[in-house]
């Protein structure tokens, strides 16, 4: 009844090609943006931003990055944690070397550095595919973490190998370091996420995305119809690395404030982001958000319910959390192997017909 194309007349090609062709979708999207930018910043406090919003926003960026590589271009990567570490250490080196430069520039540069590193580790993808590529990227994961532990230059020769984010500002407002305001860090990450999502969405809708998807679906056929596999794969690695690097830089500088390669960017991080896009939906920007929300928010929510409200012992609650989250993951994958994004698509199809059954 509300959710339909009928009656929503498009009079130009631009309108016809827009991301949200259905009016209801469009208004919902504007409402979410309005909530995010104009309402939440006024309500948010330290707990909400540090425990819920920052991890959600940052993991969303990482999931979008990995989704471009794995979901759109079909190149399985287990190196996400290592690439996030590149972003984090790149950002740290830039922050400490050029203290007067705006943090936004450091974050973007860290993303660029990660893009280059990601391309280097993506080169084998021209020769190997599938599981073999996964193993090659796994090597990147271990090599990069080893490198950041091993070479003291990366952590400025500190005694323990930890890196600490000093205070840095954007337009005079602190977004890293201890004295930040909740709304400042929240908005900083939200703006970056919004821009990243817009770029990713439009890249995947355009020629570049179609090339990636052609390679994903069948690389030989894609080559025959004129897609250059070198360009397509390498560009996917570069764009993915850029986003993952930004996520790593924000993760270290804005969210944690201190990090250490093995602890914060280990193999578990790679799997976590991979699970996010599998649960959220491969090849879907919405899926990246949904997967990040599922894996970041659910444990915090369960903890608050079990320990905060029901008063259960913390260890019992922690173990139960594993069982519930794990069980839900299995259930989702059995009931909907294409992830939460597919559930959302099905819901939209149903909505189109509602309230009539056929």
């Amino acid at each position: 009844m509300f959710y339909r194309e009928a009656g929503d007349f498009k009079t130009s090609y631009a309108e016809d090609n827009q991301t949200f062709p259905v009016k209801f979708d469009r208004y919902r999207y504007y409402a979410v943006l309005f909530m995010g930018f104009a309402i939440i910043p006024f309500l948010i406090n330290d707990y909400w931003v540090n425990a819920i919003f920052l991890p959600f926003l940052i993991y969303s960026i990482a999931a979008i990055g990995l989704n471009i590589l794995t979901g759109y271009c079909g190149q399985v990567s287990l190196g996400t944690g290592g690439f996030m570490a590149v972003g984090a250490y790149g950002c740290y080196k830039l922050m400490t070397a050029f203290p007067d430069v705006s943090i936004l520039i450091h974050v973007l540069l860290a993303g660029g550095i990660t893009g280059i590193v990601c391309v280097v580790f993506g080169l084998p993808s021209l020769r190997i595919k599938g599981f073999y590529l996964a193993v090659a990227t796994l090597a990147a994961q271990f090599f990069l973490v080893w490198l950041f532990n091993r070479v003291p230059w990366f952590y400025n020769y500190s005694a323990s190998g930890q890196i600490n984010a000093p205070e840095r500002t954007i337009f005079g407002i602190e977004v890293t370091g201890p004295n930040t305001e909740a709304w400042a860090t929240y908005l900083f990450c939200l703006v970056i996420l919004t821009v990243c999502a817009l770029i990713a969405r439009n890249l995947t809708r355009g020629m570049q995305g179609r090339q990636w998807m052609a390679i994903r679906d069948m690389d030989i056929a894609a080559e025959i119809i004129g897609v250059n596999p070198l360009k397509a794969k390498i560009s996917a690695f570069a764009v993915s690395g850029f986003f993952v690097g930004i996520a790593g830089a924000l993760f270290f500088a804005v969210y944690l404030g201190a990090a250490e390669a093995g602890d914060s960017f280990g193999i578990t991080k790679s799997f976590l982001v991979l699970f996010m896009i599998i649960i959220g939906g491969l090849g879907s920007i919405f899926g990246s958000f949904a997967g990040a929300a599922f894996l970041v928010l659910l444990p915090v929510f369960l903890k608050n319910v079990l320990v905060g409200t029901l008063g259960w012992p913390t260890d019992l609650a922690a173990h139960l959390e594993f069982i519930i989250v794990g069980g839900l993951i299995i259930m989702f994958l059995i009931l909907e192997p294409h992830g939460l994004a597919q559930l959302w698509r099905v819901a939209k199809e149903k909505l189109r017909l509602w309230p009539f059954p056929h």
Partner: protein
Amino acid sequence: MKLKLASLALGMTVAAAPAMADLVFPSLSYRTGPFAAGGIPFADGYADYFTLLNERDGGIGGELARVPECETAYNTEKGVECYEATKDDGALIYQPLSTGITYQLIPKVTADNIPMHTMGYGRTSAKNGKVFSHVFNYPANYWDGASAGVNHFLEQSGGSLEGKKITLLHFNGAYGREPIPTLEALAEKHGFDFNAIPIDYPGQEQKSQWLQIRRERPDFILFWGWGVMNQVAIQEAANIRFNMENFMGIWWSGSENDVKPAGMGADGYKSVQFHNVGSDFPVFDDIRKYVVDAGKAAGAGDQVGTVLYNRGVYAAFLAAEAAKQAQAANGVSEIDSGMMRDAMESLSITAETMEAAGLPNFGPEFTISCENHGGEGMAAIAQWNASTEEWSLISEFAPADASVVGPLIEADSAAYAAESNITPGCS
């Protein structure tokens, strides 16, 4: 996005915690994960001591102590969540029991004016209170521990370590890398060969490390491990018949949990300790009577008197003493975190205070000042007797080599001050 909003609404209803006028000592514990073997006894001891004070004395200065627990699983992200969830509750002091979480919280607690006590872990240079105003690491830190270990080896080999080989087998994380600068400086001073062998998280597999040890044949091994990697390392050492007399763990690698799995093979294993071992103290009788037998124990109640349980009790005792001194100094029973910090900065633990708390001779005497947040750095060596299944101290509490540790602390804290724009000084 829809999900985000839905969970936001759900979360809103549960995040609000009631604020009560108690003394709040949050316990960022870990009872799950690969380090739970160490986390559980410590968390039990920490909570049980405060329960004892509530049950026996009616709290601290008439105010009940409350210990909200938050599970971190030694994970830095959960540590941030736990800190944010508990800090608005009136938290007086944080003891995260994780060096990684400590590094994250150092700037945060300073900004929020809450003291943090990292007893025998954390950032060693926090001893310099001129830079780290809200962080305390009395009574001893890693560099004191490393120095105490080397001093013991020095004694063992008759006063000279010239030409000897000392290997540091360590957790490849902030915690395990912390002693490396001290050991390098000590190697230069005493003329021994030093090398470090890292073990990656979580450390259940150490075959390659021990192969390297077999090849290099070090005279002594210092061990900086935690959780499951302790049991594995001691078992591996027993397997290659390494002389346990020459194998020494830091205080986090020297509990009953670590040595028992290796059975008789672990006999003679040593560890550095900054407090006494055993259950032969009056406080444990009270804990059994008022807490365990009353069914109020935090855990299963089976850990009383073990090394890590004792350490939890000791941590709680030091926090409670600081709270008492804050109450006395300000003349009010409801203290806040700022008063707590000031009290910690002037804390003095004497034989009488320990005696009064039922912990005679439990740890060294020390006095804290703004210049020195770490105490005297006294440490003793304990040895495991596998036939009686008991740890016992085999040396007196002795100070660390201040001529080596002192300058390193100055240098590291100065680097932190420069990086974070802190002007060192005492307020």
